[in-house]
């Protein structure tokens, strides 16, 4: 039987404001699953004409899948968000690229024709679930020297990256970090960030209920001089500081994906169209380099060159890791195409949730930059991986919908 493949579009994405992990963070007593549930509700609220029964899958990521991030969260959060019982769900873990993987997995299922509409997202409440909570690494990893012991400590892998690329100095990293803070402050001032945020009622037994409406981690006005003072916790006289790396954060994201046909039929907005993606493994002790081979592979699959990419949303787990990517592709540290709204160094990086934040922001930037045809979202992933997803801008003049006015495909490429 001939199979019709579908183009996949990113309809809309939202996120909670990101919080600082820990006792004093605004989400200290707010459940992790509640964060992602609010995101799903908001996606549905923004598409009032979409019958929730049309959502055929919920894929949610969390790195630490225990407690309020456990219990097959994709299924349970869907039920708690008010999706019908007929909507299934599952949980995903690919560390920092959890939500990114939730998107590529569900997108692949949509492309394959298994279903038409899905929700993908992620959550990480690093206050309630510190990185490494409950892990039990196989002793063979050390005994057989499968990976360097530093590979499990992300900050150490970032220091390792400095060893590999001596040209990337701490000064460059700090300058990049200040740029991230400044770009985010400008984006907030211009009202670019707020539309993506879902207000979240925050529970606290001593403070009472509150309402999270804005990101907690940003430190606007930070200077390179400020950053120079910070400690380097991973190595004496090292390079990595709390200022040039993403912090420990709480937050959640979710997005709505659809086949281009369903989006057209259901009159859903199209923010981006998926072009291709790749995940690649690298040496775990320099996991930050992961986005480089992942992007090369994705570009190769897509038949594109790095010069075709007009906008980059790169996760800033560490400044050094972003700079390694930029150096590899010959892009300037302050290239305006890169992280226009700032990045994780300023906004925060609740591990498994971040991938969708990158995508949501890229889709907003696509709308503002109709001259850009393609954009890229990429991130490094713990234990030595990189993920890279290429997107096409539907606002570009050369964009051709795969669906004509009668709902049929305009080409035959997809037939297999």
């Amino acid at each position, binding site marked *: 039987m001939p199979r019709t493949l579908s183009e996949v579009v990113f309809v809309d994405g939202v996120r909670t404001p990101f919080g600082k992990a820990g006792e004093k963070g605004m989400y200290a007593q707010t459940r992790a699953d509640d964060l992602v549930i609010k995101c799903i509700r908001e996606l549905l609220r923004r598409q009032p004409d979409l019958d929730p029964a049309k959502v055929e899958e919920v894929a949610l990521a969390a790195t630490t899948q225990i407690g309020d991030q456990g219990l097959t969260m994709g299924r349970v959060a869907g039920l708690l968000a008010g999706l019908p019982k007929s909507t299934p769900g599952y949980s995903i873990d690919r560390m920092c690229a959890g939500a990114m993987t939730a998107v590529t997995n569900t997108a692949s299922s949509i492309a394959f024709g298994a279903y038409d509409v899905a929700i993908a997202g992620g959550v990480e409440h690093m206050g309630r679930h510190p990185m490494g909570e409950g892990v039990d690494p196989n002793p063979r990893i050390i005994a057989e020297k499968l990976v360097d012991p530093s590979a499990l400590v992300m900050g150490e892998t970032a220091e390792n990256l400095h060893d590999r690329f001596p040209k990337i100095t701490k000064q460059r990293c700090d300058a990049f970090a200040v740029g991230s803070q400044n770009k985010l402050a400008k984006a907030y001032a211009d009202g670019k960030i707020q539309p993506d945020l879902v*207000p979240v*009622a925050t529970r606290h037994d001593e403070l*009472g209920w509150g*309402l999270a409406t*804005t990101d907690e981690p940003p430190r606007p006005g930070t200077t390179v001089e400020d950053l120079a003072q910070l400690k380097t916790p991973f190595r004496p006289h090292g390079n990595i500081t709390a200022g040039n790396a993403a912090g420990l954060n709480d937050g959640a994201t979710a997005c709505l994906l659809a086949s281009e046909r369903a989006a057209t039929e259901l009159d859903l907005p199209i923010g981006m169209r998926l072009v291709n993606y790749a995940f690649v493994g690298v040496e775990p002790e320099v996991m930050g380099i992961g986005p480089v081979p992942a992007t090369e592979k994705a570009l190769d699959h897509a038949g594109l060159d790095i010069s075709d990419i007009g906008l980059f949303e790169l996760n800033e787990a560490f400044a050094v890791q972003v700079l390694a990517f930029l150096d590899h592709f010959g892009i300037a540290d302050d290239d305006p195409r890169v992280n226009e709204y700032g990045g994780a160094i300023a906004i925060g990086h609740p591990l498994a949730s971040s991938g969708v934040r990158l995508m949501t922001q890229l889709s907003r930037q696509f709308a503002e930059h109709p001259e850009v045809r393609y954009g890229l979202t990429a991130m490094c992933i713990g234990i030595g991986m990189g993920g890279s997803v290429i997107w096409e801008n539907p606002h570009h003049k050369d964009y051709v919908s795969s669906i004509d006015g009668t709902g049929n495909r305009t080409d035959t490429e997809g037939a297999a």
Partner: protein
Amino acid sequence: MTDTAQQAATRDEVVTHARVHDVELPGGAGTFALITLDNGFDHTKPNSFGPAGLAELSDALDTLAERATKGEIVGAGITGKPFIFTVGADITGIPSITDREQALEIARTGHDTFSKISALPVPTFGFVNGASMGGGVEVALYADYRTISSDVPAYALPECFLGLVPGWGGTYLVPHLIGTEKAAQLIIKNPLSQNRMIKGKNAFELGLADRLLQPVTFLEDSLAFAARVITGEEKVERAEVDTSEEGWNGPLDKAQAEADAKTGKAAPAPYRAIELMRAGRTATREEAFEAENQALADLIMSDELRAGLYAFNLVQKRAKRPAGAPDKSLARKVTKVGIVGAGLMASQMALLFARKLKVPVLLTDLDQERVDKGVAYTHAEIDKLQAKGRLNSDGANRLKALVSGSTSKDGFSDADFVIEAVFEEMSVKKKVFAEVEAVVSRECVLATNTSSLDITDMASELQHPERVVGFHFFNPVAIMPLLEIIRGDRTDDATLATAFATSRGLGKTSILVKNSPSFVVNRLLGRFMGDAGRIVDEGTPIEVVEQAFAGLTPMPPFMLISLVGPAIALHNSETLTKAFPDRFYVSPNLAKVVEAKIPSFYGSDGAIDTKVLDLFDAPASPVVLTADEVRERALGSLADEVRRMLDEGVVQAPEDIDLAMITGAGFPFWNGGVTPLLDRTGISKKVTGKRFLEPGVASVADSR
């Protein structure tokens, strides 16, 4: 430490704190002060307003008033902790109040504190996120706007149920918000209907909230609503309330008639609430609140309220820990139930056991036709539950599969609990138990639903008499909460513990009763119904006797006889008269009614049936008593009988008699069942020489 805080500390108030948190409203609407009421415990210990908590709320509102004046906040709202808004005033301190001024102070503090919400110079909001009762309902009414969550499981003004009025503004604010008809439903009708609670959706439909919101984003959506109201983007429309004399008072007249029907004018609280609502039509807010203060003070100092609180504690606390019951850990697991007999009562039991214990239930009877009828009855009832939506089809299938019938008792071999509901005749019961014992395991409990027979005698010929226990249901089995659990002389602790555990599993309130004639409820009912019969036989008209019991029993004696059936009433009086010929009485006239097979003393028109009166023998020298004389005599008999029961050790304490009469016979809260009434009226002292309860237990301590 303030005075109130000191008071709180001395009596261990669980303080419901008022936490204030500034939130930035969406859409740049400004800074909003959100008050969270939270006592620091989870939902199993709900928020309530005690003196220290009110003081904290008052201080918080003072601060907000200052901040609002300075323009620092654009609005203020109040909400609860997860699942709980607030369930009303902390009533734990009331029994210790002996001074009316103290009572008045409580009333005034509520008004004064809550009025600070209305007085804020910015828009105010109540976000009713969870269970909300009494003062919890009232506090939100002082706000300009309200949202309510669709998952609010309980919303009520239960004051009249206990013997109070919603006097922290409720009797004034509720009717002015939603009209007197709906207000009377909330304030009068629901409390007098077994304290019925409504849900969030119903409260919204009554107009008590402006928006009904989904729980998943309740607070977020409430704050978004507040933001839109504050910016003027959203307007709130409410139905106009009819304050014309007719429109206002008409529903209150109806409510008054309903209160008469429910309480026989014996409970002061609902009448006081109606009076306050009537006056509220033209009163200013200040006048209305002061009238509420006085009403609350009067009622707090009333024995009816103290009896109500006593009764409330019995059903809430004593009912959960039956006095004299053996340790729970001795109970054996019940995984299958046998019922001997397949008559109506047996079938009702089968349904209850299957629904509540979810274990197989086997009904047996002598012939297949009766067995089939019993099983068919149970299955038909399951169908009805399904039709009402109380069961889905899987649940109905499960229950039907649990209930089966047989003419053989062989199926009892793996049962853990077999109860007999056969004819009330000792020889029949003994035969049945012997047959059951031949089949069941050594430890299987043999329970009897007898209402009057001797448990020890019934067990005497068994190999294992220690396994026999009385398990006395009240009709209708599914509805009446009481189970009398009777210990025979040889009943062992494991059997008794299993009986109590089974009762708990069935959702029943149980009391431990000594093996004695007719146990507790039927003995007391028998005593005063015997009196009623004797008084009528001696010449007082039935109507006068009926009237004499208004406010004492849920229904007058001859109506009760008609409900349970004259034959059963006669049987009970015969059993008791056999045991206590000097005090109990078998009415020859009642025997005639039974013989004539007349099912009720009342005709279809609701009046006494003339056919019944025609049967009666006219007394040679009629003695006609007034209603007051009848009442005095009946109460005197009750006092005498209760005293004897306590002296005989039938139950552990007067509290058990009251708990039994409230849950097994529907005796009212405002009398605390029966002993507080007998003490209050002085009858216990007059008849028995002493009170049943110490002053203060179910009465105002120094009032008499």
